[in-house]
């Protein structure tokens, strides 16, 4: 009988999901994935999580609640840092402990600590611990890890070419919000349905966005120490410099710590460049679809007018359009 290991479909699953699933298969376990976020999952999460946490964390708790009782163990990696000298978020660093403390009757947690800022020996010991938790030797765990990273790399789809002609809207946001249609209220598809071409920060490689962020640091700003912050600010900086997009939509979760600062940095950069429409949207569990639709329609209409003959009647305010 294979070990059934639950994988909550939330947070960094949207980034490293293929690796997690393949790794479990390689180690001889049976991965059990929770369904796409729905109302019940969110409700369960809201009851378990502290009020102050951000929406994606609350949703993650809901996925854990859905899986507990159905599996033998849960894979909840402790993401500390995925690149040297940058962190993800303190809440993700404490996530396994938060789940242990708050979800009564949660199955055993498999929580490898992913910290690429630490030395090779610590990473090796984490791989060994992961193997032990899944009931395989450290050698097999290491091979499985390498194989699954490789498979995930090969399996990732080619980025689709950016559609031309339409209005191009740059979308900034954490992947775990944008790729979960229930959290983001289907923002990307909504923009597409309104006839605009969405371009996301994750369409660029890490290296590219990091390079643009470093470019900004070279002009006297301090470098960010949050991986996602670097990515978003890098993409925004690029768009502002080159004018590759006609407008930027920034989606943040209410209560997201890094994002409260990153949003301010992006707004500051945009106000320096002066001519880029920027829409900031904060979401939480009370966000309603109709409100988002109205704002997006108005924003895209305004951006369209600016690119036409009315351009000089629709200046940017220099201040972001704040919809909170």
């Amino acid at each position, binding site marked *: 009988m294979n070990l059934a290991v639950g994988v909550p479909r939330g947070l960094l699953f949207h980034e490293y999901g293929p690796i997690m699933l393949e790794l479990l298969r390689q180690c001889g376990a049976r991965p059990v994935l929770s369904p796409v976020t729905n109302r019940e999952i969110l409700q369960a999460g809201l009851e378990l999580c502290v009020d*102050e946490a951000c929406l994606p964390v609350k949703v993650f708790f809901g996925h854990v609640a859905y899986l507990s009782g159905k599996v033998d163990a849960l894979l909840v990696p402790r993401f500390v840092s995925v690149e040297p000298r940058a962190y993800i978020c303190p*809440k993700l*660093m*404490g996530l396994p*402990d938060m789940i242990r403390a708050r979800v009564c009757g949660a199955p055993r947690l498999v929580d490898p600590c992913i910290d690429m800022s630490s030395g090779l020996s610590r990473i090796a010991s984490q791989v060994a611990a992961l193997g032990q938790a899944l009931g395989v030797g450290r050698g097999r765990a290491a091979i499985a890890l390498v194989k699954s990273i490789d498979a995930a790399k090969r399996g990732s789809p080619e980025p689709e070419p950016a559609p031309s002609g339409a209005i191009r809207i740059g979308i900034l946001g954490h992947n775990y919000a944008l790729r979960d249609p229930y959290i983001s209220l289907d923002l990307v598809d909504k923009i597409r349905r309104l006839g605009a071409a969405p371009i996301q920060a994750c369409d660029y490689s890490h290296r590219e966005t990091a390079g643009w962020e470093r470019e900004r640091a070279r002009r006297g700003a301090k470098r960010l120490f949050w991986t996602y912050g670097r990515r978003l600010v890098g993409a925004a900086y690029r768009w502002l410099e080159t004018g590759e997009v006609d407008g930027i939509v920034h989606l943040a979760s209410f209560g997201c710590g890094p994002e409260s600062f990153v*949003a301010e940095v992006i707004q500051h950069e945009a106000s320096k460049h002066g001519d880029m429409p920027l829409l900031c949207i904060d979401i939480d569990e009370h966000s309603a679809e109709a409100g988002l639709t109205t704002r997006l329609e108005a924003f895209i209409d305004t951006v369209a007018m600016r690119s036409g003959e009315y351009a000089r009647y629709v200046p940017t305010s220099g201040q972001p359009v704040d919809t909170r």
Partner: protein
Amino acid sequence: MRVTFPHLGNLWIPVRAFFSSLGLDVVVPPPTTKRTLSIGAKYTPEGACLPLKATVGNFIEAAELGADTIFMVGGIGPCRLGYYCELQRHALSRAGSNAQLVVVEPPRRDPRGLVQALRTVKRRATLRQVVEAGRLAWAKFGAVDALDQAANMARWRETAPGEVDAAVHRGLALLDAAETCDAVLYAVEQTLHDVACRTEERLGPTMRVGVVGEIYVVMEPAVNMDVCRKLGRLGVQVVQPITFSHWIEEHIVGDIARRMPRSNMLSRARPYLRHFVGGHGVESVGRSVDMARSGLAGVLHVAPMTCMPEIVAQSILPLVSQSEGIPVMSLAVDEHTADVGFDTRLEAFCDLLQARRRQAGEGSCPSVSTGRWSML
């Protein structure tokens, strides 16, 4: 050149001593008030944490008094404190201030940071001068902490309301005036004696309550609604282990001298929290465990609203409370927090602690409720 820095409780005494003994002109920002917070909130993002709003308010108020050079600490994350400097620069430029921000990064990242930062304001500061100034400041750091601790321990049994605080207030003035390390020691001894004279024996056992949480909110009475004093007035001895000198030891001395033995909070926070989460998250959990094991009656956990490390701690504290058998109350503060709301909660908390102890005295094992934990 007029130098200023952010407020944090009585931090202004040692920091002023440090800069003054280097021969710099120091502007101490006006004490943090509601006005400070509303100025700060105007120029910072709404979702930012309270310390950012308060410090920006301090800077702008100090600039109004003529300060033109601001000293601030940096950091390397994951706590937002490390990126404060950048947002403070934006806020200052939006407020139309020309003040220059000098950021001191952690010594491991930037070994000569402090000396270089000082040289930007005083070209000929020799290492010797800096060391001398540092010695005096260090003595004052320890002294300020000692007085705070003494007040927290003594307030519950003062002879008349406000006596202990008056004595400490006089002591702080003496400390501020002291110009040598000996004078600092003398001022501390004098004040501790003064405090001891203003207390009387109380009947019955002491009820001790610990205060843990994010350092800024724990240490700054203007934003934590003066919880330590309020608890003291409610007849509780306050144990507040989070202090400046401890912070400096951990983050500056410990950062240079890696091998120095340190209080290992992480080992105490295990198994509840097994990894560092930035800020004071591990401390909050570890100290609460410590407090439960050393027989305190309860723990008050205070944190700024949306503080990431403290949200992790707050999630875990109910489990600590249940397993270690100590009541824990978490309170979040932001610029809208009101005094009276705090009064009510603290009174209720202390009443429950009293009742719990009476129950324990009668032999029944009191339980800790962990239903919906209170949060403002």
